[in-house]
């Protein structure tokens, strides 16, 4: 019966394309908006991702996300180093400050101070300059977007000078960074210099970065640190998850973007459902003829489900494909656009489209099941 179902469906090209369009539109909208949502969420963790080469982040037990800065004691660095399974551990400063540019303008920026001797946690991809130059006095490196923000219309270069907390700092390099949640420039310097670039406070160290010994599981070492120091110790992915969960729970992002995703779902349901239902209604005489000829309800339901799943599958494929193309093109032409398409979004859209297809077919199935086969005879009494 499958072949009859498919021929009936594709025989009327206009309606067939209308149904596929409805589901494609819904699939595209759901995937695209979910992709943007994931992209935005991912950006909340960009500074964690950019700090490479470390396994465990150690911090105050009450820290809820990356920007939730709660300094810990300098002694904690030594306590972490003393935990079995830790190869090395370094301090990381993260704060924000005001920079005065040579033209007199002020710019807020994020300051990250990394270990003086090892430069552990520094970004890997330098676009201009060398990372090693950070060892020079008063040196800083700036992210690409931050450089353009502070010195618009100028090519990337070194030698630019800013002033922070009455101290001079020289740009010795520009690095490639992930797009951040905030729009402020992210400046890296050595820990020992960072303390001069911000107003003095008692405690400066919010994070300790630790590397596990070869062959030691990260989660195991994190548990040991936590148990022995009383601090919160998380893997990189664990800290990213903690940060994303905070934004999910405490910001309006999920509800705002979720509304659009939900809208896409309902619009898809409405378009696909209505078109598919109309398709069935207009073909009632054909279904009635088959019913009169003795086709069982089970086979008729099978035909409708086959039709619904086919248009659902095609619409889903087209929608996800178009969303992916949109993401690739948009990211190239609009770097500020956040778009990330994990497999979970693709699978979730698939489930949503399956649901849309089933909802659409249920109305049609009901209509066909209550259909009297006598409809095939013209007239009435």
């Amino acid at each position, binding site marked *: 019966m499958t072949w009859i179902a498919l021929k009936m469906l594709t025989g009327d090209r206009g309606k067939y394309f209308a149904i596929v369009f409805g589901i494609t539109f819904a699939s595209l909208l759901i995937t695209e908006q979910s992709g943007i949502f994931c992209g935005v969420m991912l950006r909340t963790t960009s500074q964690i991702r950019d700090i490479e080469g470390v396994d465990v982040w150690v911090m105050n037990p009450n820290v809820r996300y990356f920007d939730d800065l709660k300094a810990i004691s300098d002694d904690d660095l030594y306590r972490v180093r003393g935990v079995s399974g830790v190869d090395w551990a370094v301090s990381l400063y993260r704060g924000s400050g005001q920079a005065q540019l040579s033209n007199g303008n002020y710019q807020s920026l994020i300051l990250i101070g990394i270990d003086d001797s090892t430069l552990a946690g520094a970004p890997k991809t330098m676009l201009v300059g060398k990372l090693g130059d950070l060892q020079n006095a008063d040196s800083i490196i700036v992210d690409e977007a931050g450089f353009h923000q502070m010195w618009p219309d100028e090519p990337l270069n070194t030698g630019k000078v800013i002033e922070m907390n009455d101290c001079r700092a020289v740009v010795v390099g520009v690095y490639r960074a992930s797009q951040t949640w905030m729009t402020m420039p992210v400046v890296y310097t050595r820990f020992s210099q960072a303390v001069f670039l911000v107003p003095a406070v008692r405690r400066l160290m919010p994070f300790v970065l630790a590397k596990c010994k070869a062959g030691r599981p990260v989660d195991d070492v994190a548990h040991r640190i936590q148990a022995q120091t009383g601090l919160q110790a998380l893997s990189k992915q664990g800290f990213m998850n903690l940060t994303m969960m905070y934004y999910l729970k405490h910001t309006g992002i999920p509800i705002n973007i979720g509304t659009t995703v939900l809208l896409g779902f309902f619009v898809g349901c409405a378009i696909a459902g209505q078109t598919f239902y109309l398709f069935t209604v207009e073909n009632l005489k054909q279904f009635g003829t088959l019913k009169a000829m003795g086709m069982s309800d089970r086979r008729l339901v099978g035909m409708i489900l086959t039709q619904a799943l086919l248009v659902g599958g095609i619409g889903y494929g087209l929608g996800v494909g178009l969303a992916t193309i949109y993401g690739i093109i948009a990211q190239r032409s609009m770097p500020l656009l956040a778009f990330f398409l994990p497999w979970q979004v693709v699978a979730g859209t698939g489930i949503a489209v399956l649901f849309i297809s089933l909802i659409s077919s249920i109305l049609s199935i009901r209509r066909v099941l209550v259909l009297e086969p006598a409809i*095939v005879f013209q007239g009435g009494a």
Partner: protein
Amino acid sequence: MTADLLVGQGVTCRNVIKDYGTGDARVRALRGVDVEVLPGELTLLVGPSGCGKTTLISILAGTLEPTSGEVTVLGRELTRLSKREKGAFRAQNVGFVFQQFNLLPALTAAENVAVPLVINGSTKAAAVAQASEMLHSMGLGDKVNTLPSQLSGGQQQRVAIARALVHKPRLLVCDEPTSAIDARTGHAIMTLIREVALQPDRVTVVVTHDQRVFEFADRIVTLEDGRVAGDESVEARFEQSQSS
């Protein structure tokens, strides 16, 4: 063969009543119809519009449930069959010819004819092959792969007749088979239906209001206002007209 011996193989209606709607909106379409249709002859069901012809043929074909009364078709009491059993009964024993042909527009002529075979469990390939043979035997060999929209009205009705007969049903039900085609084609179609109807095992009922096809009938049952107003063989009619 006498009529009594053939009753079990034909169609019998006893005091069939059919109501549409309920309460004040209730309309009685059939008011106690008694009819017998015998195999091996062509029975016409005639009468003015709204007299209950379509309702009666729907009940005979097992596509509509009577409100009360007994309907025995080919020895089976239809009112005692479940919906599912009735569907299976129709699939095996009933062939339909409709006024508007009711061919599936997306299927070729051969595929349309193959549908009853597929419903009865044949594979598509076997069914289409058998359907193509049937179309060849009916002079439509060159239209096997043609869509209904590319066929004339007469050709479509012949494809519909092929579809109605391909699974060798014992009951052939035709609803106004000539009303959507011209007189000449209608004559050819009725000749074909009569040929089929005269086969000894086959019971054939044709609903029509087209007086030009009366000449093909062996028996004419006239309905008026939901009742049988006349039930006579063409021979008796002829004798009656001669005597008057």
